[in-house]
Each structure stands twice: as C-alpha cells, then as structure tokens.
C-alpha cells in the first residue's frame, strides 16, 4: 500500500504581495464549510446561515484581520489540496487582563473531517506558535464552540485553559418583561 502523500504547512500568500483579496481566500471556502458543519453538530441553539452567505461574511472579516500588520494565515496542503488552515489575528493588548502590548487570537483553525486526528491541527498551531514567539507575541486567545469537546481537549493539551465563557440569548417576546423570570438578587458582576 502506498502511504498517503505527506502534507506541508505554509503561509497563504496573496497574488499581490501584502494585499489579500477575496480571490486569494477562495480556496478556503470548503474548509470553512466543514467547520460550519462541525459547529452545527455541537451547538444547535440557533439556526445557521447558508454556506454562501456565511462564507461571504467570514471572508470579509478575514480581509479585515489580514490588513492588520502581524496577522497571518497558514494552510496545510497535501499536494494541490488544502486540508486545513489557521487565521491568526494580532490585536492590541487587552484592557482587563495582563497581556503584553500585542496579543493574538486564533481566529479560525479548521481541518477537513477526513484529515482530523492526524496532527494537522497541531502542526498548524506549532507553526503559528513559532511565528508568534518570533514576533514577540506571548498571549494567545482562542474561542471554542460550546460542546466542541475535541477542540477543547486539543487546546488544553497545548497549555490553554478556558477562563471566560460567552453566553447567548435571543430576546424574544419582550413587552417590558425579560424572557426569563428575574432572579431574587443581583449580587454578581461580570466582564
């Protein structure tokens, strides 16, 4: 049996150096769809947009991210086929937590379903880590979807810990009253 050809990790480069366009990102669309499928499987509190509409909006966000100096995008490639990608967003230091002057967010990390559990995601993160450390960025944030236990374990193995939890609510049927009965007291705060 011939072993499957190995894959490589490399930065995605725009056709025009230094300026990403929608066309540069087009090869990522199937990978984005596979991440949507994964999210739909684990979290069904809200309906999802169509693949087309979602990709159009997400692509616009990527273009904004990639316009920020330091932000980058890595792809995992097997031959001509992209099998995974990572988008890393460089941001100013956080207003609350003791991060450095700049921090990173793993904006997306996606691997095709048939290519998971083979170290592709870890290799993408290893390369992202290497670039971040070389750039002096030592604080990294990443969000996982509630219920995506495999992703949670993946980041925990890499030394990450969940410290902030996002909660969501649809405001429905409001006529001055909250959707749920108000609690008895309010001795809490959040950020």
């Amino acid at each position, binding site marked *: 049996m011939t072993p499957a050809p190995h894959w490589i990790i490399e930065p995605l480069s725009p056709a025009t150096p230094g300026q990403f366009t929608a066309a540069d990102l087009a090869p990522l669309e199937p990978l984005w769809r596979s991440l949507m499928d994964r999210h739909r499987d684990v979290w069904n509190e809200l309906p999802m947009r169509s693949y087309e509409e979602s990709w159009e909006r997400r692509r616009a966000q990527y273009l904004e991210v990639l316009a920020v100096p330091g932000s980058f995008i890595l792809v995992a490639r097997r031959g001509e086929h992209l099998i995974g990608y990572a988008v890393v967003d460089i941001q100013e230091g956080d207003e609350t937590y003791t991060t450095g002057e700049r921090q990173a967010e793993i904006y997306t990390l996606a691997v095709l379903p048939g290519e998971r559990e083979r170290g592709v995601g870890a290799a993408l993160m290893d390369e992202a880590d290497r670039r971040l450390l070389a750039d002096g960025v030592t604080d990294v944030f990443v969000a996982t979807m509630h219920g995506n236990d495999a992703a*949670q374990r993946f980041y*925990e193995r890499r030394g990450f810990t969940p410290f*902030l*939890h*996002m*909660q969501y609510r649809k*405001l429905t049927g*409001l006529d001055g009253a*909250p959707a749920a009965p108000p609690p008895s007291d309010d001795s809490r705060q959040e950020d």
Partner: protein
Amino acid sequence: MRTKTITDDITIERLEPKDIELLAPLWKALLDHIAVLPDALVPIRPFEQSWPLERTDLLKALEGDGFVLVARRDGAVVGYAFVEVEGPDPVWYTGDSHAVLAALSVADGERGAGVGTALFDAVDAELERRGVEDVEIGVDTANRDAMRFYEERGYRHDFHIFYGTPGRKPWACLRREEEDRKAGRGRYAPPGPDAAQ
C-alpha cells in the same frame, strides 16, 4: 433616552461621552471584584493601566452604535452597563446587528439590591427599542454567581474563551504578575499618598 425611574429610588439614564469619568470608580469596583475571585485564572491589570484602555474602548463604542446605561440611587451613581452593538454574526442567524454586553458593574455596597437587575431590564428595553434581538455576554470562569444570574435570565453558553502562551510555555500573564509582585508595582504597588482609606 430620558431618565427612567425603575423603582422609587433607582433611576437609569443614558451616559453622555462627556460624563465618561463617572464610570471610573465602577470600573475599578469591577476589576477589584474579579481580581479576588478565588478561582481567577488570568490576572487582571491594575486600575491605573486598565482604565485608560477601557475608556478608549468606551468612547470609541459611544461614537458608533454602542451605549452605556448608568444607574443612580438618590442621585449617586451606583452601577452601569456597557453594550456594544456589532454587525450580523457571520455564521449564526442573528439579525442585522447583535449586541455584546461588555461590562456590567454595580458598586460594592449596592450588590444584591436590584441595581443589576434594573440595568439588565433597561438594556433589554433599549435593545428591543432598536430592534436588536441577539445578545452575547462574557463571564469569568470563577464568577459563578454571575453565570447563574445570566442562566436564570435565559442565557446559554455558546463559546468558551481560552488563554495560553505559544509553544506550551508557562503563561506569560502569570510571569508578568509575578514580576509585578516582586517589584511591588502595578496591582502590588504600595498605596500612594492619595489612596483613600
């Protein structure tokens, strides 16, 4: 928004950008509250560093669609809610805009007295007025009471935010905090002559 009387003594009003400094003591109260949570993981900045950054975020949001509601009891500012209004979520079927409750703070001696609930109700009403139906909030892992408060109001988990340092290295934020502790600076600075006691 005109001032609205919520109970006999709590009123809620919209903050004008020129009054931004009214929020500073409450931002400090929020930081102090998170800082001492027993299971807090990622250390927080001292107020002197954090407030200028937060103030910048606030003013930027107020220039756009964001808003701040301030609660007063007998005229004194006792709490606020900061809401950012963003565009549609790229994945989930939100409306054309969705809201993020970026901060909710209640003054120390005022907790448990209905201020948070009054602010929350006022935020809901303002969002309804604007036709914004989707709200997201973030709560620290260690802030279990807050998490319960939101769950009771119908909130459900959607994302979990992780922190880490590249290369499986020890957390940079903890190293910085330890350096501050040893040097007696930042949150560990001795109180200055102006410190109120």
